[in-house]
């Protein structure tokens, strides 16, 4: 079977967002890249089951997510913040203005239960609709909505933010600084 050019291009085009999603699932770039590679190989091996005209990106996300669930999750030492120790440790730090830093945000995200984290990323960052996210995760739309809500609430708790001032420099400022390189 030879892969058609359009398929090859659309798989490649999805790589950056697959990586971003994989990194948020794995919390580790190297493992995320392995996950993306395995996803691509699986997609190519099963390309016949892709329905032309449907969303290639959503199809790839589904493969990645299922592969992560079946293979990676058990290998990952998950730190689910169910008992709130992590949140407590952050709260014990002295209060300061704009205390939510980038690294801290990333860390907090890693402490969300994985079903909430994936829902939040798919809807809040990958740009999928609630319906698409529900398809990718194989659950009801209402389940995705409630996971996203709980994820946001939990993030705010872990980061101890109550108002917009608890965040660091405005993102626009950050973007301007970042684009200067």
């Amino acid at each position, binding site marked *: 079977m030879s892969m058609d050019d359009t398929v090859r291009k659309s798989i490649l085009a999805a790589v950056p967002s697959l990586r*971003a999603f994989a990194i*948020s699932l794995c919390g580790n770039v190297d493992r995320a*890249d392995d996950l993306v590679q395995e996803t691509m190989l699986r997609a190519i*091996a099963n390309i016949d089951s892709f329905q032309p005209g449907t969303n290639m990106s959503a199809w790839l996300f589904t493969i990645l997510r299922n592969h992560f669930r079946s293979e990676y999750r058990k290998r990952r030492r998950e730190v689910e913040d169910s008992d709130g120790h992590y949140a407590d440790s952050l709260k014990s730090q002295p209060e300061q203005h704009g205390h939510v830093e980038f690294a801290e945000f990333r860390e907090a995200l890693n402490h969300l239960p994985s079903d909430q984290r994936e829902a939040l990323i798919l809807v809040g960052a990958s740009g999928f609709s609630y319906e698409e996210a529900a398809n990718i995760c194989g659950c009801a739309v209402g389940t995705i909505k409630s996971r996203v809500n709980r994820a946001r609430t939990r993030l705010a708790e872990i980061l101890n933010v109550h108002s917009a001032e608890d965040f660091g420099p405005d993102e626009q400022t950050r973007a301007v600084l970042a684009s200067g390189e």
Partner: protein
Amino acid sequence: MNDREKTVGQSKPMETPAARSNKKPEAKPAKLGREVQARLGQQLRAMYDDVLNQGVPDRFADLIKRIDSNGSGNKDRQ
């Protein structure tokens, strides 16, 4: 096959209003301010976009090329 087992872990039974009011306080969704939600969203996208901006690393472009030159979807090792 037991029907009950099939649905385990998929969905919870609908809650009655009475059951809902008996829930532990932490289970009730706290209201997040609009601004806080917006800032959380910004942070999330900034983190995500950081990876998007890295584009397609060579290893993936090479992978696709390699598969193409093999003329087949080699599902095993590279």
